[in-house]
């Protein structure tokens, strides 16, 4: 059996690894980015000089050859579903019996025609990193647009290399589109303590460019104009499905799949950022552009390809983690941004340090729904167990210590949460 995987990110690689563990099928991975599989979230560390490029390769470079997985460096020109062939931009084509679309995502655009302005880029791919490294020396004042994780990474990168910059954020607080308000305030204050020029509730209306097409300044909706010779747009990503345009594969925002991650063409599967899940479970998005989701989907697809009766994809209990400079963030289960009346929430914040814990539960049934922590580490297995077994908040609170995953000798705060909850009840 010949299986072609389009995309060499975590999703495509997870498919290939799972396949190889269970079969000796012919596997070909097609990628237009790079011959080695690297950890995308680690690109910033290469810029910072904390790691070299070879250090962010999750598998030894001879892994692919050793495991007989072919890697082809080319872009997809077309997919011929009837002939079961993938046309490549180098003129050749690959025949497949099963095809996996793991094309990932592409950065969203501001819609200000910024693709045509020199000095405006995103920070997503290896090519973006190389471009930034090349430009870094000559930057006088940079702009970061978008208050997400990549924006903070860029802030850390610019700060470490002494590049002056302005951080443009659409929301009222940093992260108020994915964090409850108290957490968003905590992160915002933390970022402000880094002496970053961060401007909230701003939207960029247009860029000025000189006669060479090089960006010179930008304008916000409240009439500010800031001289800027380098702009990084990082306002999120969207599924990368351009190469499917002239095919019969059904797409909407992303590639539409059934519950087994199969597209409308039975021999074609999809995994990762490019997937649009038609029936996401409670509290989940239909397009989930996360490393963890891509890895999980890839493993399911890898197994399903070999099965006569594909297995249903279970999203599992949601979890995610991030790091804003040195401030770590973890979330398990369902933590709504604005707790409505049906949710109860126990929130504790350290009086001096940047640490907080929030437990969310159903106010009517007391069922534990999820938690998020800043500056503290929780144990995934334990949180998942509580959620899956529908523990009550009154059972979770006394057992909270078992979830702690901080390093030994760390200060503990379980009693504080219990007190907050007890005071609330009285």
């Amino acid at each position, binding site marked *: 059996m010949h299986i072609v995987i389009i995309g060499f990110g*975590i999703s495509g690689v997870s498919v290939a690894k799972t396949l190889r563990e269970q079969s000796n099928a012919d596997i070909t991975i097609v990628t237009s980015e790079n011959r080695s599989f690297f*950890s995308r*979230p*680690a690109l910033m*560390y290469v810029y*910072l*000089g*904390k*790691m*070299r490029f070879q*250090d*962010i*390769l*999750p598998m*030894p470079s001879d892994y692919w050859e050793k495991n007989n997985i072919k890697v082809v460096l080319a872009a997809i020109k077309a997919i011929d579903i009837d002939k079961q062939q993938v046309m490549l931009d180098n003129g050749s084509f690959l025949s497949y019996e099963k095809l996996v679309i793991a094309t990932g995502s592409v950065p969203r655009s501001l819609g200000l025609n910024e693709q045509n302005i020199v000095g405006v880029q995103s920070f997503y791919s290896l090519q973006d990193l190389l471009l930034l490294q090349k430009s870094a020396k000559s930057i006088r004042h940079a702009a970061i647009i978008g208050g997400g994780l990549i924006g903070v990474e860029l802030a850390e990168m610019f700060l*470490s290399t002494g590049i002056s910059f302005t951080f443009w954020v659409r929301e009222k607080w940093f992260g108020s589109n994915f964090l409850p308000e108290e957490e968003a305030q905590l992160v915002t204050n933390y970022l402000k303590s880094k002496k970053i020029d961060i401007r909230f509730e701003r939207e960029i209306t247009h860029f000025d460019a000189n006669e060479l097409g090089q960006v010179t300044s930008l304008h916000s909706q409240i009439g500010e104009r800031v001289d800027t010779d380098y702009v990084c747009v990082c306002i999120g990503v969207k599924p990368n499905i351009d190469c499917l345009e002239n095919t019969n594969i059904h797409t909407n925002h992303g590639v539409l799949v059934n519950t087994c991650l199969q597209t409308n063409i039975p021999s074609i599967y999809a995994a990762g950022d490019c997937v649009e899940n038609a029936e996401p479970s409670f509290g989940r998005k239909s397009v989930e552009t996360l*490393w*963890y989701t891509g*890895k*999980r989907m890839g493993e399911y697809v890898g197994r399903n390809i070999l099965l006569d009766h594909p297995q249903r994809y279970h999203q599992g209990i949601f*979890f995610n*983690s*991030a*790091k804003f400079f*040195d401030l*770590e963030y*973890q979330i398990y289960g369902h933590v709504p941004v604005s707790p409505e009346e049906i949710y109860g929430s126990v929130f504790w914040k350290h009086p001096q340090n940047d640490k907080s814990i929030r437990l969310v539960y159903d106010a009517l049934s007391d069922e534990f729904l999820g938690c998020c922590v800043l500056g503290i*580490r929780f*144990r*995934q*297995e*334990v949180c*998942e*167990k509580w959620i899956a077994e529908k523990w009550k908040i009154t059972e979770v609170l006394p057992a909270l210590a*078992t979830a702690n*995953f*901080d*390093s*030994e*000798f*760390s*200060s503990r705060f379980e009693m504080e949460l219990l007190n907050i909850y007890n005071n609330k009840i009285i």
Partner: protein
Amino acid sequence: MTSILKWSQWMLSLEVKNEKGVWFSSLSNRGIVGWLLALFLSFGYITLYFFPEWLGLGQKGMPNTGFIAWFDQISIFFNGSVASQWFVYGFLYTLIILLMGIKFIIKYKNNNYQVIRTLSLLFFQLCFAFIIPEIMASLNQPAMDLKNMWPLNYYFFFDWNIKKLLSSGYFGLFLMFWGLALTFIISPVLTYFYGKRWYCSWVCGCGGLAETAGDPFRHLSDNSETAWKWERRIIYPVLFIVCLMTLAILDSFFRKNPATYLITFSHFKIIILLLLAGIIALAFWKKGWLKGISTFGKWTIISLGVVLFMGIIFSWSYNKPVLWINALKLREWYGFYVGAIFSGIIGVGFYPLMGSRVWCRFGCPMAAILGIQQRFFSRFRITVNGGQCISCGNCSTYCEMGIDVRAYAQKGENIVRSSCVGCGICAEVCPRGVLKLENGPLFVEDGKIKF
């Protein structure tokens, strides 16, 4: 000179977490500055060990001059006599650990594990390795580093050391029993509960230097599988040789004094044979403990044991030195090649080239023993937090023992490796909080802790 000045400035800079750009700096990226420092350290060791007169050590009762003489007053303060090259070495070694240890504590001040661990290292270096032996010496008692145990302290069972301890009254006897207890009781018990970290990154002097002065070079440890292979190929033979050497020296000691002490030559013979038979029997009987060792490795251990057993019996029955080994020659050889060149010149001199734990990783017989115990009979492990690894590689890059931590973490497997010294830096640098050092239950299924 300017680069050394700049280096000392940078090393002492109190900036928090200045790990940024370690791969950009000439010092920490095996650049010119790094190579110069490696040469400087290596030659420093060579001079100190073999040509102390170049540094001004007084020859044949002459007073010290130059560099060594600077330390005369300090030495007189501590033990009443002028400085020897070993006093200068011990003094500078301790000073560097103290200074760099403070820098390390400031860098990781938000992590209690790192702070407490480093304070422990500073305490043991300052008190156990430096002050207490000096006090012992000034009281005309045998001086001993109370935390330095066999086989790292390879001369503990040398005839001159045994004679010295046994001729120093109750205090010497106490030191003798302390040394034996340390190796055969205290160390196995602590390693069972906490892993080898209780020694390697909390107490040991070599570890102390590696963790403090060596911290800026930890990313230079090669984490390839080839390096791991060489690690095993070198460290276990060193352990083997140190055991052979100790056996041979004790054999010649008892040969000269067959019935002077509580333990006679025949007692000694019986103890050794029983010990060896015990190890062989254990390898046969509890094969499950050797799970993870290749069949080749298993049979090497067993057949080597049998060959040794037969060889020892033969040599003793012909009344020859055990295994016909020339104890004096082997001792000289070990002291020069392993004691001086490997642990000193390469062990420290190569910090800027091969990372801070070259000796601990490839050479230290103590680390080898503790490692075997840690791998097969200890509650210590590094646990992985579910599926949260993003394969970024910080853990593998900053592991000073060159363990490819990521290879385990991305599979969600706990890390139980004989070489891990439990420094905790992998857990500290992980951007997603995936790793935690834990003393869990002894037996786990599929490499995962069950709740």
